[in-house]
């Protein structure tokens, strides 16, 4: 691990004070919650160090270290290839099943890990919650960034598989960053919803595992969207697109493997619902935030 700390490149800040000098008025919460962007911005260094802490701590004292970033999607891929590819013989839109499922598992693993970590983030950090004030949104949003390196590493293995199976990417790989943003937004939105619920209702903690499992089978991770369209028609396909991970996963496959034409419809619909999830999650979180210290 490196010992010197590099700092985030930040624009020149004249003032040193984090809480802008000025009056702080403390009153009982009333009315609709709002998101205090200025304050979030003021605490960006904290956000940076929280993300850093997460990344640094993740693989300390493990034997395999960073290899875990590949291993999790890789092991799932082997499992799924056997069960869904060989035994159940699900369609994989004409590409080898391992490649088909790994391409989906890379974004999916990121999504699942972020949602899971965000859900428990307030509870695992409850000692901070009750002792010091800072924008609580930092907690569920930290994994959204801190899990990105793992995602990129897992993604880095994909070209190896593609070479092995002689599958070449389409020019649409340039769209991948958009899909990554969409994936992160969806994970953040759901993470904020579940985190806020989990503080008061610990059941959410236990249930989130199953929820994520259900969401995985609901997403086209082990099977292609074409299977769905074939059975239920085009309207069902568009409705299905409301689940943002559908557009993300199909988009990944279309861009990297060229299995289907770029599913712009799914991506468009998904982007709308991902934004809705993100904003509603942030507002719900802010709404519940007032109670965190009392019920945590």
């Amino acid at each position, binding site marked *: 691990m490196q010992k010197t700390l590099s700092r985030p490149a930040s624009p020149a800040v004249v003032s040193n004070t984090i809480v802008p000098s000025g009056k702080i008025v403390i009153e*009982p919460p009333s009315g609709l919650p709002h998101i205090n962007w200025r304050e979030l911005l003021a605490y960006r260094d904290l956000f940076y160090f929280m993300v850093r*802490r997460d990344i640094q701590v993740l693989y300390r004292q493990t034997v395999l270290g960073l290899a875990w970033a590949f291993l999790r999607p890789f092991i799932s891929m082997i499992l799924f290839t056997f069960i869904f590819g060989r035994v159940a013989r699900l369609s994989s839109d004409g590409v080898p099943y391992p490649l088909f499922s790994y391409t989906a598992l890379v974004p999916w693993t990121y999504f699942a890990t972020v949602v899971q970590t965000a859900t428990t983030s307030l509870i695992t950090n409850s000692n901070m919650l009750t002792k010091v004030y800072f924008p609580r949104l930092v907690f569920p949003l930290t994994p959204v960034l801190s899990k990105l390196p793992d995602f990129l590493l897992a993604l880095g293995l994909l070209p190896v598989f593609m070479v092995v199976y002689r599958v070449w990417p389409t020019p649409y790989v340039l769209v991948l960053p958009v899909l990554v943003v969409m994936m992160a937004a969806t994970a953040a939105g759901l993470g904020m919803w579940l985190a806020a619920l989990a503080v*008061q209702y610990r059941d959410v903690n236990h249930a989130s595992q199953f929820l994520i499992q259900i969401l995985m089978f609901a997403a086209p991770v082990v099977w292609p969207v074409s299977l769905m369209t074939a059975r239920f028609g085009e309207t069902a396909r568009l409705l299905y697109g409301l689940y943002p991970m559908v557009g993300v996963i199909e988009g990944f496959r279309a861009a990297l493997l060229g299995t289907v034409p770029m599913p712009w419809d799914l991506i468009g619909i998904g982007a709308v619902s991902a934004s809705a999830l993100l904003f509603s999650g942030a507002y719900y979180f802010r709404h519940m935030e007032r109670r965190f210290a009392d019920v945590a």
Partner: protein
Amino acid sequence: MSRIAIEVENLSKRYRIGLAQEEEQDTLGGALLSWLKAPMTNFRRLQRLSRFDDGEEADVIWALRDVSFQVAEGEAVGIIGRNGAGKSTLLKILTRITPPTTGRAVLDGRVASLLEVGTGFHPELTGRENVYLNGTVLGMTAREIDRKFDEIVEFSGVAKFIDTPVKRYSSGMRVRLAFAVAAHLDPEILLIDEVLAVGDAQFQRKCLGKMNEIANEGRTVLFVSHNLPSIEALCARAFVLDEGRLVFSGGAREAVSFYLNRQVFGLASGVDLRHHPHRLPGDREPIFTSLRLLNADGLETSSFAIGEPITFELRLDLGEEELETPFITIAIEKRGIPICALTTRFMVAQRFTLTGQAMARCTWRPGWLTPGEYTVSRVTLKAGASAERLDHIEEVLAFEIVERDVYGTGKIARKDTLLVPDGTWQFF
């Protein structure tokens, strides 16, 4: 009149304490039914944690009630009160950790709070990494920490280990590093809760010195502590809180004596504990029924000579319940400074059982304590180390230790120390 730094108006906060106990079912059918209904009842119970009806409910307490005060810029003000008097709640509201139920507070200036040292410390990270993490948690920017980093490390005295993971630190080192970060916050308004109760005596003095420095630099300090002498030393003014209300506001010395006079109903040789006003609220019926203080002759008294053993006779009403080797603790303080805790946990080797109308008697040989007023600051009963408290009373009663010609010189020892030295001189 200088600028107002902290202005608090009619601040109140209500909490719901605990989750009400379930009624017990004694039939299989009843138990099955209540088990099936459990998710629904649990849901309502959890919801009630943060919802309040208008009426006064039994399990709702007002941790703070209509508290108003002003603190001028540059003032150091202490807040004293028993446990549960609302001190911590007040700080939590002022630090925005929890919102008030009603009322309003205005803080004018950059605020830093210290409710705990080392918040956010991660054992796997090095000292250096933790300084940055902890500093930003407390509200500093990375540039600010860069600037003060050397100073922080020097103050902490752990420079040699700054690149070692914190999990390899001793707890003392950890606390020193954490306080060093906090001490360099550079706020205009500083809110502090009892952080001085950590670290060794030398480091505590260093902390007090640093806080004094902060107070003398014209910063505004709000300081909550049990340690009355340090309140007197640090603060010019102090508030006394009792049961959520502000009952006194004035000079620190006056506040301390007001507090001492108020909390204890004069010296007492015994006290009825069944309806003690300082029992901490809980779901259970009171268990302790009385406490008596006996001298070496077995006579009930409230004054003891220096060195004289003191016997505490504690009666309990356990009803049907049988307690297997419970932890009973009697804590003694002098003006807010803990003297000792007499506890069955460490002092009793054999197992014992208490049931029905029980009695526990503890004889304490206090050594040569300086004459003055002492308090039984707490009696608690727990079923085991990690079990919940079955009963808990604070500021139970006061007794005094009176002078005695211990040296046979006819001269009386100094009173400004904790101990009358039990020793001899020799000359050659």
